[in-house]
């Protein structure tokens, strides 16, 4: 039994951690998100040069072919730094959808560009009514000769303002909730009839609603079978959730550590508040929450590749990290007191990011329900 990192994993982790430490301080990040376009193209270029954008992508197409355990070495420090660059939207979500659903030609065209940072793509699958259910697709793709006409609205698409291409889920057949009949289509951001309404998101990044009105794409824009896109979509969402858990662990560790440091120095009634027993026990509970989350993610990294185990392991991980992230984030604010409630300090930003994590890909509580229904 060996749960230590490989040398390769250690190297990449150290590199990402070094980047966060040196180039992605809270103040540096604040400048990035306060200006346009809302992420750093320079950093993105760095990520590409250091090979990080290729970690989960296939070796045949410019990637590293990494397993989840490799990917976690990138996303955990990213979570600790609250990185806003579109790693999850472009590399993980769109990248996986293409790698899992696309033909060799499509992969060869798109993946190297994602890996070298020249292409930012985004996965547009959510809709006004769908919440986190990828089956609930009302956007339609109607075949017309050699083309498809796409109609509908995709909502809350992370990275949308920056995307040059969207991977859009749309129904080619069947009824609203059917698993069959969903296709994934590669659509240029500047396609006629496509409009992006962009906004900031609570975690400091950006997203948008993508409206498609009679958007015409060639039939070749379908990633694989235009009626069987759900497999690739699910694979993308699975890896997306796993990576989000990794980011959350990084953020939890960071916010726990800051809280621990704070209670050691912050004085009230002439003593550090860390000398109060209720504060001490609270910190112990936070520590336990972080370490237990790390254990669960270790489990996930081991089991993720096993198709028999993946869904169960992933659901359990989301439940556990969601519950612990909520606790750690809330207590971090509580123990920081007033200063934890301000925009000025990083604590509140971790809080917002972890709040969204608790919802991402299905809320903690929804995932618990899923586990109860399907996995006990």
């Amino acid at each position: 039994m060996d749960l230590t990192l490989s040398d390769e994993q250690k190297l990449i982790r150290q590199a990402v951690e070094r980047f966060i430490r040196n180039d992605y301080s809270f103040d540096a990040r604040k400048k990035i998100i306060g200006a346009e376009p809302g992420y750093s193209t320079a950093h993105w270029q760095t990520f590409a040069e250091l090979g990080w954008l290729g970690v989960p992508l296939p070796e045949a197409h410019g990637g590293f072919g990494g397993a989840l355990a490799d990917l976690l070495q990138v996303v955990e420090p990213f979570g600790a730094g609250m990185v806003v660059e579109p790693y999850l939207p472009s590399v993980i979500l769109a990248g996986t959808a293409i790698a899992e659903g696309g033909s060799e030609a499509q992969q060869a065209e798109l993946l190297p560009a994602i890996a070298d940072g020249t292409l930012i793509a985004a996965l547009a699958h959510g809709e006004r009514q769908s919440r986190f259910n990828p089956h609930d697709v009302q956007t339609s793709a109607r075949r017309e000769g050699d083309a498809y006409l796409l109609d509908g609205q995709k909502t809350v698409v992370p990275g949308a303002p920056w995307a040059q291409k969207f991977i859009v889920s749309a129904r080619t057949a069947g009824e609203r909730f059917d698993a069959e009949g969903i296709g994934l289509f590669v659509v240029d951001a500047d396609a006629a009839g496509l409009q992006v309404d962009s906004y900031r998101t609570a975690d400091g990044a950006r997203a948008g609603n993508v409206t498609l009105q009679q958007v015409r794409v060639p039939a070749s824009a379908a990633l694989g079978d235009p009626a069987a896109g759900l497999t690739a979509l699910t694979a993308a969402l699975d890896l997306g959730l796993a990576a989000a858990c990794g980011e959350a662990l990084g953020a939890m560790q960071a916010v726990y550590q800051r809280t621990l440091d704070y209670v050691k120095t912050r004085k009230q009634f002439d003593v550090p508040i860390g000398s109060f027993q209720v504060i001490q026990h609270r910190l112990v509970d936070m520590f336990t929450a972080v370490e237990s989350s790390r254990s669960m993610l270790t489990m996930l990294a081991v089991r993720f590749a096993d198709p028999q185990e993946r869904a169960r392991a992933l659901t359990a991980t989301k439940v556990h990290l969601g519950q612990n992230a909520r606790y750690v984030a809330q207590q971090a604010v509580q123990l920081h007191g007033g200063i934890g409630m301000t925009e000025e300090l990083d604590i509140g930003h971790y809080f917002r990011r972890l709040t969204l994590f608790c919802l991402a890909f299905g809320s903690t509580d929804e995932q618990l329900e899923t586990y109860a229904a399907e996995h006990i």
Partner: protein
Amino acid sequence: MNVDFSPAELEFQQQVRQWFADNLPADLKRKNELGKMPSRDELVAWQRKLNEQGWLAPGWPEEHGGPGWTATQRYIFDLERARAGAPIGLSMGIVMLGPVLMAFGTPEQKQTYLPRILSCDDWWCQGYSEPGSGSDLASLKTSAVPDGDSYVVNGSKIWTTYAHYANRMFCLVRTSNEGKKQAGISFLLIDMDTPGLEVRPIISIDGEHHLNEVFFTDVRVPKANLVGQEGQGWTIAKYLLTHERTTIAGVADSKVNLGILKAMAAENQSNGKPMLEDPRIRRRIAQVEIDLLALEWTNLRTLAATAAGKAPGPESSNLKLAGTAVQQAITELMVEIAGPWAWPWQTGDYVGPPELAHAVERYNFARAATIYGGSDEVQKNVLAKMMLGLK
């Protein structure tokens, strides 16, 4: 046992309900539903309307322009105020300073300031907390040094709610470093436009500007602005803390917000069905509703004890603890309902369903409830000491 309101109280309730129905502006109501703060002008206009009716300061006696209501009437009024969808309003002058002046102020101070609170010509903010003082309020350092007819004030205050709207501040300052730290504190009234006073905004994690830092550099304050005696500041502050508050639990507003939560769940779908039909959501709403029901009756029991002439004690700590827990639980459920619509940040009403788009802001802001006004931890210390006799 009898919890029925008397016929006179029921008539009063009807009267209040009707008045709100006739007078509350629709846009003010809407902002309140979304958990958004009205603008200064909106609030002043609304509070003046309340004052014309004589209802702006429910806790004030008639001699000072209040309605002279009983505790039960004040409870009913707050119930109807919330039910109508009206904001609580900014109450520093009414709830905090008013009672202090009535108890400790000179005749001149009462005459000068009380009417201006009611007319909304003065907007007061509270200068208690300082950087570093936190829950250990008595450790405050802002100094007021006598110099002729004035005090010269130096230092700073923090977490000053709506200081950027206020033209006056009541604050605690240190006039002596001798003896116990509580003994050297005095209660002072300061004009916000006094030279040397500077207000800097603090943005909260809901993205809004509620709070401020206030800096004093050789700010000269007339000695006539001292309330009570020099060194009496701590006594005055404590007087306010134990001052009876029938509405600290926030029951009336939590009931309204629970209704808003249910409406959100009814209007939004998951898997093609209204979320309010989902047993999972129903169970969580049920839990909050039951907790709120218990809180309501704890509040009623306290009120009944007050009505029976018992002096209010540290029960307000208990009510605050339970009340804020319910408030936070409601906002947390709002975020759960919001789901993907929790992402858009401060997009106002133009992206997604507006209630959902504001859910995260409300949840974030509600975190303050267990920090300000004595954190949960401090409230429990108080209860352990005062009610349980644990030292």
